[in-house]
Structures are given as C-alpha cells and as structure tokens.
C-alpha cells in the first residue's frame, strides 16, 4: 500500500477482532492493589490527634476532638495519601474503590471511640 | 543577602542591557526571567537565566521597591510575557515593554497577589 492508506491493514484487523472496550459499568472493574481510591480509617486506633487534618493539602479532613468525630469530605480529597503518611498511629489507609459521583457533595463522618488520656497527664503538656 | 550560587552573577541596572546584548550576539537563549520578593530582604530580585547548549548563566538584578527596570523585550521578544507577568503579579514597573498588556496577561481580579499590600 505504501503511502496510500497504509493504515488499512490495522483497521481491518481491528474490525475483525474483539474490541478493546471494557464492559464497565456492566461488569465491575478490578483494580490493582496499590490503587488510590479513597481514604479509610480504622477508627479504633485513631487518637484524634489532628495530624491528618493539618497535613491534608486541600483540607478535606476535619477532626473534632470534642465531638469525637473524624470527618472527610471525599468530594474534596485529592487522594494524595499524605494523611496516610503522616498519621502517627497508621490508622488511615488508602484503598481501591472511589467515591461514587452524586448530585450532592456530602461528608462522611465516623465516631471515634478514642478516650483521651486522663487529665492527670495534662500539667505536663 | 543569601549566598550566591556558582553560575549566578550579580549585576546592576546599568550593566543589564550590555549583558543582554552580549548574550544575544553570542546566540544565547533566554530561559526565563524570575521575579521574587523575599520578605526578609524587602526588595525585588529579578533573575535572568540564559543558556547556550549546556552552558548556563544567571544574572541577578536587585531592584528597590519603587524602582523601575528596563525592558529587554526589544532584544529578546520572548521577554514580553515575563515582563508583563512581573508587572501584573508583582507590581514591578518595567519600562517600555514591546507589547504592554497593561495587566491583562492573566486578567486576575486581585492586584499584585505576590506582594502583600503593606509591603508596597
């Protein structure tokens, strides 16, 4: 074919072979294990130190010491994993599965069972 | 004043055009012009970077807050963008830019965002 329509071969090959298209959303997608999908918390280990809140670049995490909640706005999270890096208790993880799109931006909140240490420790600080 | 790196030369305003012409005639390429305003120093630093093949040279001009700098855009056309940027974002006056966009390069709402009001 030379200069004229040299792509024909490829095109015809494509025509008669299975397309590359995935079947998503009819068949769910399988993600590799390292995929950074969303941030999850192991609430039992969290000590409400607020490190994640302070380090999060877009400010997606709110840690409420008084209310004992850990809140994340997943419409604001950039899945950078810096909070995971920074968390002293390694209770955060970033795992496969992304936040579903939706008509509202909502936050996701967990009650953290952590009991702060006795006030006895306070004078030291 | 911080330490100056090995390929960085301090020049003053009078030398600028001479340096620029030398570079131009030796076919150096203008890599960038960087303007900064280190708060601690309280003056502008304008850095002109040139390259020729793998050779690299930077020339730094120290400019006081209310001073103007001459434009090099008539020698290096590509300086137009850098110089307009300096004026729009830092409020540094550049005299006689070849195409003066009068702060309409980025068309931002805030005035000179890299300089805080009281610094000016």
């Amino acid at each position, binding site marked *: 074919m030379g200069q004229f*329509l*040299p*792509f*024909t071969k490829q*095109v*015809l090959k*494509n*025509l008669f*072979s299975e*397309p*590359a*298209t995935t079947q998503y959303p009819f068949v769910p997608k399988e993600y590799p294990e390292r995929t950074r999908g969303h941030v999850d918390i192991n609430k039992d280990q969290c000590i409400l130190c607020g490190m994640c809140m302070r380090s999060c670049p877009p400010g997606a995490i709110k840690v409420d010491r008084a209310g004992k909640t850990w809140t994340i706005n997943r419409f604001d999270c950039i899945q950078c994993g810096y909070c995971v890096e920074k968390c002293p208790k390694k209770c955060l993880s970033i795992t496969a599965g992304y936040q579903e799109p939706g008509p509202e931006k909502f936050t996701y909140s967990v009650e953290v069972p952590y009991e702060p240490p006795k006030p006895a420790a306070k004078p030291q600080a | 004043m911080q330490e100056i790196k090995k390929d960085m030369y301090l020049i003053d305003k009078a030398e600028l055009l001479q340096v620029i012409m030398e570079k131009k005639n030796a076919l150096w390429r203008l890599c960038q012009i960087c303007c900064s305003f280190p708060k601690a120093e309280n003056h502008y630093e304008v850095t002109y970077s040139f390259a020729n093949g793998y050779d690299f040279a930077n020339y730094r001009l120290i400019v006081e807050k209310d001073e103007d700098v001459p434009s090099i855009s008539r020698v290096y056309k590509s300086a137009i963008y850098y110089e307009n940027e300096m004026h729009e974002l830092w409020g540094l006056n550049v005299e006689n830019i070849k195409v003066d966009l009068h702060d309409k390069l980025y068309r931002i709402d805030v005035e000179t965002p890299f300089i805080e009001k009281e610094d000016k």
Partner: protein
Amino acid sequence: MTERIIIAVLYVLLAPFVIGLLDGFDRKISARMQGRRGPSVLQPFFDLKKLFEKEFLTANKAQLFMIRSYLVFIVLSGVLFFGGFDILLVVFSLSTAAMFLILASTSTHSPYSAQGTHRELVQIMSCEPMELLVAVGFYLAIGTFNVNEIIKTSISPIAYLPGFFVGFVFILTIKFRKSPFDIATSHHAHQEVIKGVTSEMVGKEYGMVTLAEWYENAILLGIVGLFFLNSNPVSIVAAIIAILVVWFLEILIDNTSARVKWQLMLKLAWGVTIVAAGMNLLLLEIIRG
C-alpha cells in the same frame, strides 16, 4: 407513470430509514475499525429524534426558514431523481438547495459558520464539475438525460462509463463529508471549524439538516446504483451490491486517512475529474465520432 410516482413516494417515505440505518452501521463499523464497541445501530435515529425535542435557540431567526427550504429542495431533487426525470436538472436543483444551506449558515455572523461556509463552497466547487459530468456521461452513453430512460438501456452504463464512475466515487468522499475531505462539516467534532456550516444550528435546525443530508445521500447512492442498472431486473441486485461496496469503501477511506487541506482537496478533486472523467469523455466522443 404510476410506477414512477410510487418510487418517488417510497423515496420520500423510506430514504431516511434506509440511510439512517446505513449510518448506524457506519458508526458501528467505524467504531470496530477503531477497536471500540460503538453505539447501537439505531443511534442515528435516537440522535435525530432528540434533536427535534431540544429547546429551540437561535442567533438569527432567518436561519430556520432557509434550512427548511434547503430540506424541501433536497427532497424535491430526490423526487425528480427517483421519479425518473432529467438527471442534469437534479444536479442543478441540488446546487440550489446547497445555496440555501450556505445562506442559512452565513446568516448568523459566526466565525466558525463563516469559515465552514467558505469551505463548503469550495467543496461544492470541487464536486460540481464531476456531478455535471456524470449527467453528461449518461447522456453520451445512453443518449438521454432522462433517468427513466437510462434504466431501460440494455447494457449497464458502467460499461461505457468506468472513468466517470471512478470520478464520482472520488467526490462521494467529499459529499459524504468523510475523511480526508471532511473539510467543512465533518462528523467529527474536533476540527478547526467546529461543525462548520452547522455550528450555529440548534436542535430541530440541526435535525433538519441531518435529515436533508440523509435524503441527499440517498440520491447520491441512487446515482451509484444507476451506473449498474439496465433493463434486466437482475441488475438491481448488482446495483445494490455496488452501493454497499462503495459505501463500505467510503467508511474504510474515512478511517484510514487524515483530513487534508482544502487546497489539496480542490486540486485532487479537479485533477481526478479531468483525468478520469475527461479521458472517458474523450474516448466516448471518439467512439461516437
């Protein structure tokens, strides 16, 4: 006569369905050629119906009436063709229709419509000699411009008109707005003139233009078929096969070439017209003495 009227009526009623379906397969096949699954074959009909359901916005109200006139003229040309009338007049009437499209497009003062329009004009200019020559070819081969008489010939016109056929298939690429000649209004959005002539056409306006294009494509494919028809009914099968082959060829070309610039299009179209059709013409004239 009644026969001819029936065919013309069938054209008006069925052409959109047939061409729409061909278009659907076109999209499917193109997608597969690109290694994709592609849309449903009924997609063109969904698209068309949707366009008529959209809100009607316009930058210039004059546009709508010109577009309607365009549609009516295309259908009228089709009726003339399938009704078996004079093929040269069909070509003339098609160019009158095209003029309405052009006027519709420029009525809006939009930069993209305008660029598209000028390119459309260049396209028309590139194709028109060949279209007229096809009519001339039939006249030379069969002795009449009359479609109804052309189909009554004993030997298919293609026997006399191979050069004309080649030239015509070449300009079909332009007419179908296929790569490498989708210069004014391609079916791909990603081009410098956006959607060219149809850039400013919203909802039903765009729907009408699409419909008109289908009607026009029916005429063009009809002309392809005409090259193969003769008094023997079996030739109808040959004509249909020819139409399908040409149609597939256009899809293939579409998927294996880049969009060239209009200067090259003009040069190529005129060059092919002069060489292919011109030589054939000369030969026919010599044979006729």
